[in-house]
């Protein structure tokens, strides 16, 4: 909630971390980095206090960072910051059986993976590590590709707590 101090504390580092993004976006992301709890927008999760480790393994990156490769179309709070992981829900929530789908490239093997962004439901917003990336995101008339919907459907409660990013397979190269 206190974007300015965060901006000052993290400005340079934040810019560096987001250098893969367009320049003005990097600036904006830093601007509102501290507003993660309240602003449902932009790629700003910054759970990790340290630089994400780009390990040379099969699933590189920091699941509490919005830059993690699986999060290319995520919109919401990262479950890895909320008591869950990148693929599992926090205690006391329920995973939505239906959801939207993204296709993200894994830098480890340079393959495109199909990612299922299942929401965890039944509690209100976790509030930590808000992350919004819209690569491949489509308007609401194409719901299976739209992150604008709350996908807490088919669960006991429609309240949205956080989002997972589950690998469901490799996309066929086209």
């Amino acid at each position, binding site marked *: 909630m206190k974007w300015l101090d965060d901006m000052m504390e993290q400005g340079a580092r934040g810019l560096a971390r987001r250098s893969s993004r367009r320049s003005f976006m990097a600036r904006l992301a830093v601007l509102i980095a501290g507003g993660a709890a309240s602003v449902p*927008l932009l790629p700003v999760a910054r759970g990790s206090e340290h630089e994400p480790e780009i390990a040379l393994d099969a699933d590189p990156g920091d699941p509490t960072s919005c830059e993690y490769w699986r999060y290319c179309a995520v919109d919401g709070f990262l479950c890895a910051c909320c008591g869950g992981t990148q693929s599992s829900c926090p205690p006391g929530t329920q995973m939505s059986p239906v959801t939207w789908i993204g296709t993200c490239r894994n830098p480890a093997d340079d393959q495109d993976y199909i990612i299922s962004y299942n929401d965890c439901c039944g509690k209100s917003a976790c509030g930590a590590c808000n992350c919004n990336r819209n690569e491949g995101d489509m308007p609401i008339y194409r719901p299976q590709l739209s992150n604008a919907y709350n996908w807490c459907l088919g669960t006991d409660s429609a309240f949205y707590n956080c989002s997972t990013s589950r690998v469901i397979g490799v996309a066929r190269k086209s």
Partner: protein
Amino acid sequence: MSFSRAFATALLLAAGSAVADLPPDKMGEIGTLPETWPPHWIIAHDVSYSHIRDGKSFVLDLDADSIGQQFKGMVNSSFAANFVQATTRPELYLAETFYSRGTRGERLDVLTIYDKRTLAPLGEVILEANQRAFIIPQRNLMKLTGDESLILVYNFSPAMSVSIVDAVGRKSLGTLPTPGCAGIFPTGTRGFSALCGDGSLYTANLDKSGKVASSSRSDVFFDVQDDPLMEQPAWIDGRAYFPSYQGNVVPVDFSGDKPVIGEPWSLLDDDTAGWRPGGLVPTAEDANGRMYVTMHPEGGDGTHKDPGLEVWVFDPVKQERLARLPLQVPGLSIALTRDKEQSLLIVTTVEMKLDVYDAASGELRRTLDNFGQLTPIIVFGAR
């Protein structure tokens, strides 16, 4: 300051003090608002994203200098409520969702009707479908029909449908499936259209009881893969101007019973290649027939919700850009007041404040902050 702490003291009211004493204030006085709200009042509809059970819609006067004069009142709403206001009755409508145990238990979708004069509920209609779509706030999820007789609410379960409410009789008229088609674009006197996943429009005209009198489906008129239309058009004289991801515009005339789809044109020119529309509510319109769009440079895949660095103003009939208004702070959503001469542009910034610009000059007039907002993502000018 000096004071006396004993409660007993409170009982010892002075009986015969000097005439200069302040008179007692009345008990139970409650403010009211005018039936027609001035043109520079707005409704800042704040769904309070991280505390979404406790949404608030603030009524604010953009002409006032201090919070005491700016803040006119508020109404609560629950769980990403949809908001719409009537123009022919002093009424506001909020479609909201409650659970019997806050975030758990039994779900209940309700349309609540508020009186603009008292900001108190006048009544409610239960939305039996209980499938109201929860989407980041925008203008096309709940609408009044052209004659303001019906209220239409978009549902998603993930089956797509529309709940139909008699706005005058305050009763539910049922639910109409709209398979594969989303959003509500009022059409003709008492109809609506929806954008479909194949790039076509579905249209239904309703009778007074909310039943389908006629329906139609357009040809496919845009490419949902390579240049999808944003579902958030500017509305001018019954025509909707839909921006596309790539910066084109498709006009659709919804004034008759059957939409008439026009020829696409581009928001861009040679000097602005790479700019794209983007944001959460990226379009608006004024009473002079101008279209406003939030624009960002270096656009590309995934930037269609990025905040705008500028607002571009168009004459959509002449397909001419009239102005580029640079924003002091990047903006996610825009709205305009309803007046023609002194129209104000309201921008929800990435800081979640409201920046108010003179729409004609682009001059920043003031910033509204600390009015209790959390995420005032969508703003409505008073109608």
